[in-house]
C-alpha cells in the first residue's frame, strides 16, 4: 500500500474549476451534414418506382396513391409512405432511389402527440424539415446499388453493314445478357407503359435465373412475336425505365431477343415449352384479314382458345409490314418465319395471294365464320404532291421496300434524295444505300425531313446509324419541287422549315424562302407516311360502320366495330407500330371470345 495512492485520486478536484463540457441545449445543436434524420422526398422527381420499398429491410415503406399525382407513362402515380414505427433509418432507400428524389435531412428530433403522424408520405405530408438541404444523400457519384451503364451491344461496323443486308446487331452473349439483366430493379414501370403490358421484370428475372423456357412462357403470355419484337420494337418501355433516370435504361428489347434466340427454330420444341400440344378445338371459326402483327397476335390467342383460324393474306408471304416494310438487316426473314411458323403450327390456316374484297368478299367471310378480325395495315404510299412528284423517277418508299423483299426490280440511281424523317424514311435510306454500294461501290443519298433534328420522329439510333453508313441526313427542310430538266429528275428544291404547326396545332409549315437549297439526285423517294386501303369494305358494310377522323374506322376499346362480328386493329386503328398491333390483336382475341360466348 502506497500512501501516495491515497492522495493522488484527489487530483480529480482540479477539474472542478473547468467549465462544464456538456452542451446544455441539445435542441439547437445542428447535426452533422451527413446525419440520417428524417425522410424528405421530391415528389415531382420521384416516379413511384417502388425500389425504395423493395430494399427496405423493415418493410417500413408502402407505395400509396397520392392526390394530385396521376399515373402516367414513367410514373406509377404512387409515392412512398414511411412508417416510423418500423424504420431503422438505415437510408438504404436513399442509396438505391432510382431518381435521387429521396433523402434524409439532418433533423435530430421530432415530437408529435399524434401517433398516426409517424406514418407519413414525405413530400406530400408537409414537414418542417422539407426545405432543409443537409442530411444523408446518396454518398458519392460512383457508389451504386445497381449497374448504371448499359452492356454495349455488339454490332457490325458501318463499313461492313452497308455491304449487305445481313443483320448487323449481333445479340447478347449469355454473360452480357445476364449482366444487363442484373441491372433491372424489377419495378415494373416499363410494364405499365408497354402497349402489350409485357411481363418485363419477370422475363428479365428468367434471364438471371438462366431459365429460358420460363422466359419464353412469360413472353408468350403477352406477345407471340418475340423474335420480331426483340429486334424492331419501338421499345417505349426503355424510354421510361427507371434505371434510365440516372443511368442508361435497360436494353429491354435486346434481352427479349436474347431469350427468344436461345430457343431453336423447332415448332415441336416451342409446343413443348409453351404447353400448346393438345389444344381442344371449340368448333368455332374466325377469319382474319391480313397477316401483320395484330392479325398474327389475334390468331395466336384465339388458336390457344381452340378457335379454327383462317388468315387471308394478299401477298405471297405472311408478316405484313414486318416482312414487306422492315429491311432485312434489321429483321432477318428467318426470324420472322420462326415466330410465324410456331403460330401456324397451332392449326392456323393461311391462304396466300388472296385479296379480300376481290377474290373473296368480307360478307362471305362473315357467313363462313363466327367473327372476323381485320388488321390490314398501312400499305399505301403518300405523296408530297409537290410539282414534279408525278415524275416516274419519284417513288414511294412502301413500294420500293416491298419490291426489295419480293425480288421485283428496284431502280437504283447514283444519287438519291429521300423525303421523310420517320423510321420508314431511315429504312429506305439505309436500304437504298446498301443497293447503291453494291451497284456503284459508293453511297450517295440525301435524306431530308421537315422536322428539325431534335423532333425527327425516327429513332435516334436509326439516324446515327444511317449517318455512320454514309447517308447524309439534313433535317429541317421542306420540299418545294422536284427539279426536272428535259424530263430528267435533277434533284429536290427545298426551303428551310421554320415551324410545322400553327397555333391551333394544324399542319401548316412555315418556310424561310431565303434559305433555299437543291439536293442533287437522279431519283426522289417519298417517305412521308402511309395510308390505309379499306377498299375491301363493301358499301353495305361501310354503312354499318362508324368512321372517325382521317377515315379511321371507329371501334370500342376492345377493337369491336359497330358491326358486332367485325373487329379491327393494328395500324389502321392505332399505332403505327408492331407492339400496338400485337396488343390490339390480343385484346381483340379476348373480346371475340367474350362476344362469341355471350349467351352461352
Amino acid at each position, binding site marked *: *500500500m502506497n500512501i501516495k*495512492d491515497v492522495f*493522488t*485520486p484527489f487530483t*480529480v478536484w482540479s*477539474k472542478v474549476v473547468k467549465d462544464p463540457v*456538456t452542451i446544455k441545449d441539445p435542441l439547437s445543436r445542428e447535426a452533422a451534414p451527413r446525419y440520417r434524420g428524417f425522410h424528405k422526398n421530391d415528389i415531382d422527381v420521384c416516379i413511384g418506382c417502388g425500389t425504395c420499398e423493395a*430494399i427496405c429491410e423493415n418493410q417500413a415503406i408502402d407505395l400509396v396513391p397520392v392526390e394530385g399525382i396521376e399515373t402516367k407513362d414513367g410514373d406509377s402515380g404512387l409515392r412512398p409512405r414511411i412508417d416510423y414505427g418500423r424504420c431503422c433509418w438505415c437510408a438504404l432507400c436513399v442509396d438505391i432511389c432510382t431518381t435521387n428524389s429521396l433523402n434524409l435531412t439532418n433533423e435530430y428530433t421530432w415530437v408529435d402527440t399524434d401517433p398516426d403522424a409517424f406514418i407519413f408520405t414525405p413530400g406530400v405530408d408537409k414537414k418542417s424539415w422539407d426545405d432543409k438541404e443537409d442530411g444523408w444523400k446518396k454518398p458519392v457519384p460512383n457508389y451504386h446499388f445497381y449497374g448504371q451503364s448499359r452492356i454495349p451491344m455488339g454490332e457490325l461496323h458501318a463499313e461492313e453493314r452497308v455491304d449487305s443486308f445481313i443483320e448487323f446487331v449481333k445479340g447478347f452473349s449469355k454473360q452480357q445478357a445476364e449482366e444487363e439483366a442484373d441491372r*433491372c430493379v424489377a419495378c415494373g414501370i416499363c410494364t405499365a407503359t408497354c402497349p402489350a403490358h409485357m411481363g418485363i421484370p419477370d422475363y428479365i428475372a428468367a434471364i438471371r435465373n438462366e431459365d429460358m423456357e420460363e422466359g419464353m412462357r412469360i413472353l408468350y403470355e403477352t406477345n407471340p412475336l418475340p423474335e420480331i419484337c426483340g429486334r424492331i420494337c419501338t421499345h417505349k418501355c426503355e424510354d421510361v425505365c427507371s434505371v434510365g433516370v440516372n443511368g442508361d435504361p435497360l436494353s429491354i428489347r435486346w434481352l427479349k431477343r436474347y431469350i427468344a434466340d436461345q430457343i431453336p427454330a423447332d415448332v415441336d420444341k416451342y409446343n413443348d415449352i409453351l404447353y400448346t400440344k393438345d389444344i381442344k378445338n371449340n368448333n368455332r371459326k374466325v377469319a382474319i384479314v391480313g397477316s401483320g402483327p395484330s392479325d398474327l397476335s389475334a390468331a395466336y390467342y384465339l388458336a390457344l382458345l381452340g378457335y379454327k383460324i383462317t388468315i387471308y393474306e394478299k401477298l405471297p408471304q405472311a408478316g405484313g409490314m414486318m416482312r414487306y416494310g422492315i429491311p432485312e438487316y434489321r429483321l432477318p426473314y428467318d426470324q420472322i418465319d420462326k415466330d410465324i411458323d410456331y403460330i401456324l403450327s397451332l392449326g392456323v390456316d393461311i391462304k396466300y395471294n388472296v385479296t379480300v374484297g376481290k377474290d373473296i368478299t368480307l360478307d362471305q367471310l362473315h357467313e363462313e365464320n363466327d367473327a372476323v378480325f381485320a388488321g390490314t395495315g398501312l400499305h399505301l404510299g403518300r405523296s408530297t404532291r409537290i410539282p414534279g412528284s408525278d415524275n416516274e423517277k419519284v417513288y414511294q418508299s412502301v413500294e420500293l421496300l416491298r419490291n426489295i423483299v419480293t425480288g421485283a426490280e428496284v431502280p437504283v440511281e447514283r444519287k438519291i434524295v429521300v423525303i421523310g424523317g420517320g423510321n420508314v424514311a431511315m429504312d429506305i435510306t439505309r436500304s437504298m444505300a446498301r443497293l447503291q454500294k453494291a451497284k456503284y461501290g459508293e453511297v450517295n443519298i440525301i435524306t431530308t425531313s421537315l422536322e428539325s433534328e431534335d423532333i425527327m420522329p425516327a429513332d435516334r439510333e436509326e439516324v446515327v446509324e444511317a449517318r455512320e453508313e454514309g447517308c447524309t441526313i439534313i433535317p429541317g427542310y421542306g420540299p418545294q419541287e422536284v427539279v426536272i430538266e428535259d424530263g430528267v429528275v435533277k434533284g429536290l428544291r427545298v426551303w428551310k422549315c421554320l415551324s410545322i404547326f400553327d397555333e391551333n396545332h394544324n399542319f401548316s409549315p412555315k418556310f424561310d424562302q431565303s434559305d433555299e437549297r437543291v439536293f442533287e439526285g437522279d431519283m426522289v423517294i417519298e417517305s412521308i407516311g402511309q395510308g390505309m386501303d379499306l377498299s375491301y369494305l363493301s358499301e353495305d358494310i361501310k354503312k354499318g360502320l362508324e368512321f372517325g377522323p382521317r377515315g379511321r374506322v371507329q371501334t370500342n376499346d376492345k377493337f369491336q366495330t359497330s358491326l358486332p362480328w367485325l373487329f379491327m386493329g393494328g395500324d389502321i386503328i392505332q399505332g403505327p407500330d408492331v407492339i400496338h398491333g400485337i396488343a390490339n390483336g390480343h385484346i381483340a382475341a379476348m373480346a371475340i371470345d367474350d362476344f362469341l360466348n355471350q349467351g352461352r
Partner: protein
Amino acid sequence: MSKFFEFKPDRSKYPAMGADGKLDIDLSSQKYTKLWLGPNHPGVTGNMAVELTLAGDEIVEAKTHVGYLHRGFEKLIERRLYVQGFPTSIRMCVAEPDTNEYLIARSTEVLSGYDKDVPEMAQWLRMLSLEMARLQGLLRGVPGQAGTFSLGIGVQWGVYLRDLILDRFEELTGARVYHMYIIPGGVRGLLPDGFKKRMEDNLRDIDDFIVRIRQLMFNNAIFNKRAKGIGVIPKEWVEQYGIVGTNARASGVKRDIRKDYPYLHYDQLDFDPPTATDGDIYARSWVRWQELIQTVDLIRQIMAKMPEKGDIRAQMPNVLHWKIPKGETYTRLESGRGEYGMYYVTDGSDKPRRVNLRGPSYTHAIALLEKMLVNTNIADVHATMVSLQTCPPEIER
C-alpha cells in the same frame, strides 16, 4: 491497516461437494440465501441474470442465465437480402456495433469472390471506424471498471469523451451509435472535410484523460485493494475455456486477431498488444488502459497512412438480385472484448442460409463467470462481470 485489507474470509461453512459433483446445498438449513442479480437493465451486467447462492455475503455457487434478450437477429438476417443484413446486425452488439457490420460485409465478400475488389480507401475507412469503435468502447469500459467500485467521476469523463468520438462517427457515418457504415463492397462515405483535424483535437483531450484516469484508478488505494487478487483467471484457464482478447492478455496469453490473423491493413500498422500476468481485475483494467493508449495511437497511424481519395465501394451486382454461390466461411476480428467471429453459410440463393455470431461473452459471461464468482463477495459480482467486458446482447443474438 494492511491487516484489514488482507482479511481472508472463513470458508469452512461452505457446502461439501457430493460424489455427483453437485454442491450439497440445503436452503431450508437457513445457512444459505438465493439472490438473483438481474435480469433488469441498469447496465450491461443486468441484461442477464446471475443466480447466486450466498452464505452471508459470500458466493458459494453462481449460475448464469441468459435468454432474456433473445431477439433472433441471426434469423432476421437469414430472411433478408445480403445487403439488408448489416443494419440488423449492429443490434447484436451495441458496445461496438461496427464489428458486426464488418463481419457481415466481409463474409459476403469472401463467399461471392468480391473480397479482392473492395477499394483501398474503403479498407482504411473500415479500419478507422473499427478502431473508433474500439476507442469509444474503451472510453466507457476503462473508467467503467472504476465505476463498479463507486468511483463515478471517471465514468463521467469517459462518457463525455466518448460523445466526442460519437460526434466524429456522426459526421463520418451519419449516425452516432448505430453507424451502418460498413456495407458489403465497401463503406458508405468518405472522410468529411476537416475530419482529421477535429479527430486530432479529440485525441488530444483523450491523451489528457489517459493520464487522469491513471491517477484515478491505478494510483488509487481503493481501486488497488478492490481490484487486485479478485476475479483471477489463471493462465491455464485461457486454453481450457477459450478465453480471448484482453481477458486472455491480462493472464499472460498474447492473443490478438489483428496480429495472429491480420485482416484489413493491420499488418501495416505498428503496434504490440499489451499484456499482464496477474489475471485479476486490476490486470485486465491495466491492459485495457494500455490498449486505450494504443488505440489512440492506431487511429493516428491510420489517419496518417490512409489514402487521400479513392473509391469507397466495389462494383458489385445489383443488391436486389445478388446471389452468392454455395459456401461457408468463418470471419473474425479483434473486438474490444476479444475474438469476435461469424460463421456464414450461403446456398446459392439471395439470402444467407445460416448466420451465426460467436462473440467472446459466450464463454466469458456464461461458463467462466460461474466459476470466477465462487468465493467472492456480492459486491464483487458487478466488478467481475464488467472486468470480463460482458455483453449479453452478443450472447443472445
